[in-house]
C-alpha cells in the first residue's frame, strides 16, 4: 500500500463539525441515554429527567414511547404530556407533523433505533430526530449499544443476537450530550426477571454482558473526548493532556520497527488508547530504506495506527511538535547503536528527544 492511499481522518471530522454547527444554529440540543443492554434503566432515567425539566418550567412532550412500558415508566408518563402516535396501515409511528405543530422546547423519543413503516417521510427514526432538531426542538432519546452500526458485529459475536434497526456511530458523536446508564450486570439481569446473583460476575451470561458494558463505557468515553476536543477548539485553550493514553511510535529504516509497532499495538489495546506512527522523511534515504519504511508503514496501518510523515530538517523538533499537537502521552523511539558526526555536532537525537519531550514519557527500544 502506498502512503498516499491511506485514509485520512479529516473529512469525517469536518462532517461532524458541520452537523454540530447546524443544530447549534437552531438552538436545539440532542441528549442521548446509552445503555449496554435492555434492563439497565435508560428509559427510566430519561423520563425522570423529562419530568424534572417539566417541573422546572420547560415545555416538554413525549413523542414516542417503547411498547408495553413497565409500571414504573407508566407512573412517570402520567406526569408528562404525550403526542399520540400516528396509526398507519403498516403500523404505528411517531407523529412527526403533530409534534412540529405543537412545537415544544423538548421532545422525548424512546427508543431511537427504529425503522419507520413503509411510506413514512424518513426511513429511520434518527432522521426524524434530525428533522425535529432542524426545527428547533431539543430531543431526549435512548439507545442500546446493540443498535449502533459499528458495534453490531462485536455485539453479535458476544451475544449471538442480530438486530436490523441501527443508527450510525457518527450520530452519537455529534450529540451535544451523552450519558451512560451503567448498572452492574447482575442488577440488569434481575430487572429482566432473572434470579439475583451475588455481586460481581458469576456466570457466563454476566460475562457476556460485562463485555458489552465495557464497550458502552469506552464508546461514551470516546464521545466525551470528542466533546472535550471541540470545547478546547471553541475556547482557544491549550489541549487537555493525559485523559487517555496516546502512543507515538517513531520509526526510521534502522530501528527495530516491527517490535516497536507490535508493542505500540499491544499498549494501545491494553490501555484502550490511540496509536500514532510517524517517520521523518529524509532526502538521503536510499531505495532500500524507502522499501523498508513502506513495509513498516503497512504493518502500522494493520495495527490501526494513524500514520504521519513529517518533512522536517530537524527530525527531533518535528517529532516533538507533532507529539504536543496530538496530545501524545508516550513516545517510542529506537536506540541509536552507532554515533556519527551529526550526533557529535547536534547531540544524540534520543537524548535530545528526552530533553525536549516535556510532560511526555519516552520509551527507548533496543535496536
Amino acid at each position: 500500500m502506498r502512503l498516499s492511499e491511506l485514509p485520512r481522518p479529516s473529512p469525517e471530522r469536518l462532517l461532524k463539525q458541520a452537523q454540530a454547527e447546524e443544530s447549534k444554529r437552531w438552538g436545539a440540543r440532542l441528549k442521548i441515554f446509552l445503555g449496554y443492554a435492555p434492563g439497565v434503566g435508560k428509559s427510566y432515567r430519561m423520563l425522570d429527567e423529562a419530568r424534572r425539566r417539566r417541573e422546572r418550567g420547560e415545555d416538554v412532550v413525549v413523542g414516542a414511547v417503547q411498547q408495553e412500558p413497565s409500571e414504573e415508566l407508566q407512573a412517570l408518563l402520567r406526569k408528562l404530556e404525550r403526542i399520540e402516535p400516528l396509526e398507519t396501515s403498516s403500523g404505528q409511528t411517531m407523529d412527526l407533523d403533530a409534534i412540529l405543530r405543537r412545537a415544544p422546547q423538548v421532545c422525548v423519543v424512546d427508543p431511537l433505533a427504529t425503522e419507520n413503516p413503509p411510506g413514512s417521510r424518513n426511513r429511520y427514526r434518527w432522521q426524524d430526530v434530525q428533522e425535529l432538531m432542524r426545527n428547533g426542538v431539543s430531543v431526549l432519546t435512548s439507545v442500546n449499544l446493540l443498535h449502533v452500526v459499528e458495534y453490531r458485529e462485536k455485539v453479535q459475536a458476544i451475544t449471538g443476537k442480530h438486530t436490523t434497526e441501527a443508527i450510525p456511530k457518527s450520530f452519537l458523536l455529534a450529540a451535544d450530550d451523552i450519558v451512560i446508564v451503567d448498572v452492574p450486570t447482575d442488577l440488569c439481569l434481575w430487572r429482566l426477571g432473572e434470579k439475583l446473583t451475588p455481586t460481581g460476575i458469576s456466570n457466563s451470561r454476566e460475562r457476556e454482558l460485562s463485555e458489552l458494558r465495557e464497550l458502552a463505557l469506552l464508546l461514551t468515553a470516546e464521545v466525551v473526548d470528542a466533546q472535550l476536543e471541540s470545547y478546547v477548539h471553541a475556547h482557544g485553550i491549550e489541549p487537555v493532556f493525559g485523559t487517555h493514553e496516546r502512543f507515538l511510535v517513531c520509526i526510521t529504516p534502522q530501528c527495530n520497527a516491527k517490535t516497536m509497532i507490535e508493542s505500540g499495538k499491544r499498549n494501545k489495546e491494553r490501555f484502550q488508547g490511540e496509536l500514532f506512527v510517524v517517520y521523518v522523511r529524509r532526502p538521503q534515504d536510499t531505495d532500500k530504506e524507502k522499501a523498508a519504511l513502506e513495509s513498516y508503514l503497512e504493518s502500522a496501518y494493520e495495527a490501526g495506527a494513524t500514520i504521519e510523515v513529517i518533512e522536517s530538517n530537524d527530525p527531533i523538533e518535528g517529532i516533538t511538535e507533532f507529539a504536543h499537537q496530538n496530545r501524545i502521552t508516550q513516545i517510542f523511539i529506537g536506540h541509536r547503536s552507532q554515533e556519527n558526526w551529526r550526533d557529535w555536532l547536534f547531540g544524540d537525537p534520543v537524548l535530545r528527544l528526552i530533553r525536549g519531550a516535556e510532560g511526555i514519557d519516552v520509551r527507548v527500544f533496543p535496536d
Partner: protein
Amino acid sequence: MPSTMPVAENSTLGKLKVYLGYAAGVGKTFQMLADGQAAAQRGLDIVLAYFEPHARPDTIAQVQGLEILPHRKIEYRGRTFEEMDTEAILGRKPQIALVDELAHMNVPGSARTKRWEDVQELLHAGIEVWTTMNVQHIESLNDQVWQVTGIQVRETVPDWVIRQAAEIVAVDVTPEALLNRLKRGAIYKPEMVQKALQGFFKGSNLGALRELTLRQAAHEVDLQQSAYDETGSVQGPRTSETSPGGKADDPWKERILIHITADPSTAILIRRGRRVADYLHADCMALFVHRTTEVSPLLASEREAVEKHLRFARGLRIETRVTGGSDVAKTVVEFARNNQVTQIFVAQSQTRLGERLRGRNFAENIVRMAADLQVTVVADRSRRLRS
C-alpha cells in the same frame, strides 16, 4: 506474583462494590442508597454504616427506612468530628454495609488513618461493603489528574484496594447537568459555589475527569472479566487460554523495574510504573542503590525520603530491593539484566550543572548503558501544567 493479586482468594472475605464518579454531586451516594433500598426490600441484611451529614435533601430522602448505625464522635483540637464506628459495625455484623466516601482521611486520634483501612477491616470480617469515591482519588491517577486539572489531590486510595472490587459502577451525568445542580445550590452551600467553579468545576476539567472515570470503569470491568476467566466457571465460553491475563508462557510478559531515589519525582515514577504494570499485566519491582564509594553517608533527610518512597512502593504492592554499588546507573542496569527485567523506569531528572558539563544526566546514562533493554524515561507531569 502474590504482590499484585487481589486478596480475594479467601472465601470469607467480603465483596467490595465501588460507585465511581468524577465530581461531588454526580449522584454516587444517591445511586448507592437507591440500590441499598432495593436490596433491603429483597430482604438482605443491610446497614448504612457511614453517611456524610452534609447530604442533599433528595439524598436524605433515600435514607428513609434503612438501618443507620451511629457514628463515633472524636474530639480534636476542641472540635467534635464524626467518623465511622468500625467496631460497632463489626459487632452488628450485617450482610452488607454502605460506606460513603472511601477516600476520606480520618481525624487524628482515630484507630486507623484512612477510611479504606476501616473498610479493609469490614471486608476481612466477611462483610460486603458498598462505597463511593471520585476518580481523582485513585492513587495511580494522581499525576494525570494533576496534569489535566492543575489540582493536586491529597487523599488517595491505592489501586489494589479498588482492584479488590467485585463490582464497579460508573455514576454518570453530563457536566452541563452537574453545573446546573451546582448553580442551583444543590451541591455546595452558596458561599462555596464560586470556589468550586474555579477549581474542579472549571472549564474543561469536568469533561476530562469524566473521561478518566469512564475509562477507569471500563478498565476495571475488563479486569473483572479476566478474573472470572481465571477463577470462575470452567464451562464458560472463554477459558483461561484466551484470557488476556499474564500467563507464564506469554511471550510479551513484561517485568518492570522502578529506580528509586531520594528525589521527589520518585513518587510520580512509582505511580506511573504501577499503572503501566497493571495495564500490561506485568510484574513490577522497585530498586534503590546506595553509592558505596560515597565518602559521607546518606544525609538524614535523603535517607528519610528514600525510606518514604520504599514504603510508598510497598503500599502499592510493589516488591522492593535495596543494594549497593560504586556506579549507581551501572548497578541498576546489571540488576535489571540479572532479574529478567524487560523495562526500566527512570525519572527525567533535572540535569545538574556538573552532569551538563560531562554531557549526560543520570537517566541518559541509563539509556546509554541499557542498550539491550527498554528504558522508559518518565516525565515530570507537574511541569507541564495548563494555565
